């Protein structure tokens, strides 16, 4: 599984990244977590609001910081 956090680097994008990282670490999951802050790449995903979370190339969350339960759902746990 590969998760990408899209965001040009604002506070919300960072907390999204940290929230996902925390769940992955706590559960020892085998997930690749990447942060994308290049706007050209971000726009390839056709989103208009950041932060966004992409799971295996599919946009799952856009425009808000996910709560921990949302993250768990994304990760399938």
């Amino acid at each position: 599984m590969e998760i990408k956090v899209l965001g040009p680097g604002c506070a919300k994008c960072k907390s999204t990244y940290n929230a996902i990282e925390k769940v992955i670490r706590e559960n020892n999951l085998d997930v690749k977590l990447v942060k994308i802050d290049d706007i050209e790449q971000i726009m390839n995903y056709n989103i208009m609001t950041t932060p966004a979370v992409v799971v295996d190339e599919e946009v799952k969350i856009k425009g808000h910081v996910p709560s921990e339960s949302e993250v768990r759902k994304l990760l399938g746990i």
Partner: protein
Amino acid sequence: MIQDFADWLVYGLFGMSADTAAGVAVNFFFYDTIKILILLFFISVLMGIINAYFPIERLRKYLVTHKMYGLQYFLASLFGAITPFCSCSSIPLFIGFVKGGIPLGVTFAFLITSPLVNEVAVAMFLGSFGLKVTLVYVISGIILGMVGGFVLGRFKLEPYLTDWVKRIQADSSLQSEEWEKDSTSFLKRFPTIVRDAWKIVKGVLVYILIGIGIGAFMHGFVPEGFFEQYMSKDNWYAVPLSVILAVPMYANAAGIVPVIEVFVAKGIPVGTAIAFMMAVVGLSLPEATLLKKVMTWKLIGIFFGTVAFFIILSGYLFNQIL
């Protein structure tokens, strides 16, 4: 009520006198801090609710598919005002608009209002200047976006977009994206919204405290009407000067409004103060650097120049009517 609490705390509990400059300053500090924090929290929650349910994709589609004879500038500007996205969401939204084939002028209308009218600015204005000035600020911010966007749209600025944005614009098409239904219920979302609002408050808390601290000091120690001799209404260059001074200043609304409040109380005309505020919040160098991704420097210059021009105009206007 808050004033009673501040009075009780400072004059009662601390035993300071209401007749001394220090007593007045400390009282002002507590009163303003409590009032503004409460306002900021509630406005952030409100904006968070709007943000969570605002149908951005649907609005974009609507703007493209309907011919609106100028109303689209109003909608884009209003949209910029009510969406509390963080500053870095402005660029993805800008591209999203361009991608959808929305004219550049309409996109600019959004881009002007978006930083200008935001939850922090509104809460600070409400707390510091009251409802009337806040309404004037919000409404004129929206009008500024409309007029600025309309004028910029007339300039034919497309050639000054950066190359990759031009490419996007060339093959712009409205993807028939289905409007995703948000399945998360309000009750489930609400705690997240409150948590985010709390984060906003926490994020700007230190600026608010510093701003109110400086404001409180001036409130207690600077004599009434002190600034009037330097920046009166009759002084024609006061408005442009304050706008020009404001552009390189990157203070967020949280830190700057409490200081401005005191400037106004001590004799600076409200119009000049609002123009200054608008320029600080709406035109900032960090924003220019972000925009560099989508615009050439020339276009950023034209954009800032036009907006500054209209801010100066509204400054004069407010000085006349307020």
